[in-house]
């Protein structure tokens, strides 16, 4: 068991940057998710921790020791691969025992620990099966058991749920999280699924194009996003380009003047971030907005709105049957409002000015 520190970790391939500079401190027993779209460098970062990719800058410290140049087999990490990477010619028992065998642990203890860990992942009695005789969910649990049985200092999960069907995914997510907390595993998980990251991790690292955009808890990222990318990637968000005209007044690119929660400062390009659930809609014959489309989603209803040329999405609890909101149809005029504090002003997305070399 131990902590994991990434110190200015970077990877370049020739002149292209895969990972720019990642600083991260994962505390003992903490679960941190690397979240981002494909190609953002999250998997490369994980593979640098495991030792499969050699960093071109920075250091990796596990339990305080520098392992930046150590080969994979000399690092105390347990990794669960996206494809599970089970040994197809070995039984479940032999797969799980492999790491113990490499650590020269005696047969009796090996067998006992394999039994225990298989009980932990609810696969007891399947020791003699071959991986191909198991379902996808069972294979996934073998991969978990194989990585857990060696008590790694750092537990690494590379998109562990992406090959499971949606229903199973939810279950396994809870299982992994419960296991991780019970065993106090220092864990790094890579995922492109924000829901997975939000539900499993203590902290999230949002990455984009090799850079860390923001590090924080689920609430931090959702309620206080640092930039438009994070706001748009974590949950849904109306992102309006424009600039702050006077304190509390935002002028969109299409010319609409909107209230916002910026107390001071003016001028300069900015982005207004407004979560759909904060947008209130009401029928109003003389309202400034127009309803473009309504999508009924059971407990919630989505309203696609047009406000003086600006498109907005509102999500509200579905109104009761008698509510006049239920009679709204596309083309109707509506009033649109929100609490100024809910509309956050973010720095305009910077075009990547820095040269890649």
């Amino acid at each position, binding site marked *: 068991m131990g902590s994991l520190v990434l110190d200015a970790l970077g990877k370049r391939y020739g002149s292209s940057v895969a990972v720019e500079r990642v600083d991260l401190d994962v505390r003992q027993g903490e679960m941190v998710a690397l979240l981002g779209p494909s190609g953002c460098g999250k998997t490369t970062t994980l593979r640098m921790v495991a030792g499969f990719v050699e960093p071109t800058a920075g250091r990796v410290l596990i339990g305080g020791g520098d392992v930046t140049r150590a080969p994979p087999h000399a690092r105390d990490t*347990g990794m669960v691969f996206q494809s599970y990477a089970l040994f197809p010619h070995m039984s479940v028992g032999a797969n799980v025992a*492999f*790491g113990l065998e490499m650590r020269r642990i005696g047969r009796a203890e090996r067998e006992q620990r394999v039994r225990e860990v298989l009980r932990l992942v609810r696969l007891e009695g399947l020791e003699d099966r071959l991986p191909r005789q198991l379902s996808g969910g069972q294979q996934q649990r073998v991969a978990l058991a194989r990585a857990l049985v060696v008590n790694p200092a750092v537990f690494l999960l590379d998109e562990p749920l992406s090959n499971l069907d949606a229903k199973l995914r939810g279950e396994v997510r809870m299982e992994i999280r419960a296991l991780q907390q019970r065993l106090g595993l220092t864990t790094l998980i890579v995922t492109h699924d924000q829901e997975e990251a939000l539900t499993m991790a203590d902290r999230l690292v949002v990455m984009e194009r090799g850079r860390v955009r923001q590090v924080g808890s689920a609430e931090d990222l959702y309620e206080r996003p640092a930039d438009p990318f994070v706001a748009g990637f974590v949950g849904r968000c109306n992102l309006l380009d424009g600039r702050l005209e006077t304190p509390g007044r935002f002028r969109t690119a299409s010319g609409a003047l909107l209230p916002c929660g910026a107390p001071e400062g003016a001028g300069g390009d900015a982005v207004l971030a407004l979560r759909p659930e904060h947008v209130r809609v009401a029928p109003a014959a003389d309202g400034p907005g127009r309803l473009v489309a309504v999508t009924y989603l059971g407990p919630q209803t989505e309203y696609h709105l047009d406000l003086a040329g600006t498109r907005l999405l509102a999500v509200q609890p579905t109104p009761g049957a008698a509510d006049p909101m239920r009679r709204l149809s596309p083309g109707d005029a509506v009033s649109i409002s929100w609490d100024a504090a809910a509309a956050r002003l973010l720095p305009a997305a910077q075009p990547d000015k820095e040269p890649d070399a």
Partner: protein
Amino acid sequence: MALPSPSRLVFGGLVATAFTLMLAPVVTVMVISVFRQEIVSFPPSGFTLRWYLNAWDRQEFARGFISSLQVASLATLIGVPLGTAAALALVRSGMRGGAAISTLLLGPLAVPGVVAGTALYMFYLRAEFWLDRDITSTLQGLVAAHVLLTIPWTVRLVTASLQGMDRAAEEAAANLGARPFTVFRRVTLPAMRPGIIAACLFSFIQSFENLELSLLLVGPGRTTLPVAMLNYLEFRVDPTLAAVATVQILLVAVLLLVTDRFVSIARTV
């Protein structure tokens, strides 16, 4: 019960025709080997096993069989490891010109055996002149030539089994503490195993039944079975050859069946 549809009938007919065309020569040889008369004609005047006795009595076939066995075993033993190493390098190193090398290694399949045999013969003569030692009619010379037969098969088959493997399994082994050689021994090699076993089988058969390449390279007293059969044919035509061929066919069939018990050939090739 419904009658089979016309398309099924046509398909079944085609399959039956294909099997007949492939198996007819084999069956014919086996049947002829027990005909009584010396000059093969139909209908047979009776059946006998004396051609098998004749084949047994004639030393050249027994000796040829031993030679072929020896050459095929040695060629397989040398060629398969070489081909396996080449396949590993080609698949894994991603080296420049890999495709060209791979084509080159498959070359012996494309060159007619007689041409390759003649070329090798001339090359050996040159080499003998330079090195001042015998090559053309030695066991080493013949085995070296047969190694050429084994390499294309091995490269093809082992490459296929390597390409089908999940490389993450090797990373998983390293992650669990296995050093590179242990990863190879415990994960990579088992993944290549079906390819290697199939390669041994095909290499052995290729070498064992090869006539054209061997024709100019065999030395006195070291005639391989196919060459011995050709020699016999120059003087007599009787069912003895059919008897020898039958034994050869059965041997190959047994080899295939035994191999299939270890790896499913249909799945590998």
